[in-house]
């Protein structure tokens, strides 16, 4: 690994200034679990790392208009254990719990996870399903973008030069809203997922006459960015007993995906797995909806 200069700005404005001064030669350092791998492999060869560790309160989690605002430097283990987050966004909590392994989660941050923009990462799939937004700042001004628009491509985000991600705004899951996060690893448990799927919906009625409404399904890991499945509304409300329509839903999911062949599976295989996850997720939503 080539050596680099390390800066510790004390404020967001200083950090953005350092980014502007060093341009392409600078990279932000959050938890470092992904960045250090890229440094070791020589995929990034920065002259300067701008460390965010000493900017106060950048890891704070606070209540914000109907949801939570999570500081970019909040570490995943801390978020997993955060009582307010567990209550407000159980879907995000479920996804965080499956990221890498506990050593990674002890160090990795939610902001870093999003900015690294690896399509296999778990949190983005859940965040898109929850309609979460990112807060981007350049030290003077800030702007807000849906996570779905922040992630552009493999390791590419909508961050402009001299801008950094300050926080993530996660809307509160409403009462009666049920959710499920599923991932399938094709090789072994600790490996990158082959397919991820997040579902949020509301289930009405009493078992066995349950119906699912307002369903939002997002599939991750298959394409450069999480895919929000379109055309679901036409299938709603979806009755639990309507096997044919449940199958149509799974087919709708599979038809919209454009996976590629790689070590985690062939495109055909991944599409089938996405269908399986969609069927399982729906069953899970109904089960949660049936619980008193």
């Amino acid at each position: 690994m080539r050596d680099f200069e390390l800066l510790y700005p004390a404020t967001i404005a200083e950090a953005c200034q350092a980014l502007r001064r060093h341009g392409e030669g600078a990279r932000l350092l959050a938890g470092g679990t992904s960045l250090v791998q890229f440094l070791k492999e020589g995929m990034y060869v920065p002259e300067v790392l701008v460390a965010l560790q000493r900017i106060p309160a950048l890891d704070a989690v606070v209540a914000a208009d109907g949801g939570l605002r999570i500081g970019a430097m909040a570490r995943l283990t801390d978020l997993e254990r955060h009582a307010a987050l567990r209550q407000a966004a159980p879907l995000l909590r479920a996804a965080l719990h499956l990221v890498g392994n506990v050593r990674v989660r002890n160090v990795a941050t939610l902001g870093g996870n999003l900015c690294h923009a690896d399509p296999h990462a778990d949190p983005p799939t859940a965040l898109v399903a929850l309609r979460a937004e990112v807060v981007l700042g350049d030290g003077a001004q800030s702007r807000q973008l849906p996570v779905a628009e922040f992630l552009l491509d493999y390791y590419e985000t909508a961050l402009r030069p001299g801008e950094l991600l300050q926080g993530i705004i996660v809307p509160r899951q409403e009462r009666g809203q049920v959710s499920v996060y599923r991932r399938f690893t094709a090789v072994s448990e600790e490996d990158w997922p082959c397919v991820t799927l997040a579902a949020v919906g509301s289930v009405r009625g009493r078992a066995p006459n349950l119906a699912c409404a307002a369903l939002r399904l997002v599939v991750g890991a298959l394409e450069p960015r999480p895919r929000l499945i379109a055309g679901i509304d036409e299938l709603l409300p979806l009755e639990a007993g309507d096997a044919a329509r449940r199958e149509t839903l799974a087919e709708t999911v599979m038809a919209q995906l454009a996976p590629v062949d790689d070590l985690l599976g062939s495109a055909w295989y991944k599409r089938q797995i996405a269908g399986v996850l969609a069927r399982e997720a729906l069953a899970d939503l109904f089960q949660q909806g049936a619980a008193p």
Partner: protein
Amino acid sequence: MSTAQFDPARYKAEQRQSWNAASQHERDRMPEIRLTVNGRQERLTVKNSTLLVNALRDQLGLTGAREACGVGICGACTVIVNRRTVSSCLSLAVLADGAEVLTVEGLSDGDRLHPLQQAFLEAGAFQCGYCTPGFLMSGVALLATAEDPSEEEVRHFLVGNLCRCTSYQEILSAVMKMKEQASPDWLQPRGGLSARPPA
């Protein structure tokens, strides 16, 4: 065919030599960090790019943590920094400035093994032993912080440690067996070894 045998003393001497080969100018620019390792205050001069695993091994002679996969999956480099397990092969040493670090060498009190080490021994929770320091550090961290973890929780916690000899059942049973005995002070160093290369 002869196989060159690994000689720890020679390895350390070589590391020392490469360290001395760094120019004075280079060393003047390197940050000095202060940290507590296994209860002992240490001052180290490192590069910004020095990994914690290498600082521990090459400068302090603590070779229990080893870099194997290099990407945070296998857990062979697991150490505890400020009461949390981390992959020391993905940690920049310079960020450990001011930290409290516990390595496998700090588990025993010098004469007696740590209770979890003893449990591993009794359960036969290893074959080649390469992964053992990592599993011990993960096990200690889990048992010291989780209250009465279920078998599923223990499995989930240990998912990031690989044993290629597949001693998983024995490792799991050793950790589960120590649930009752564990306490938060397991994260405190107990003296143990603090090996150091010759000056």
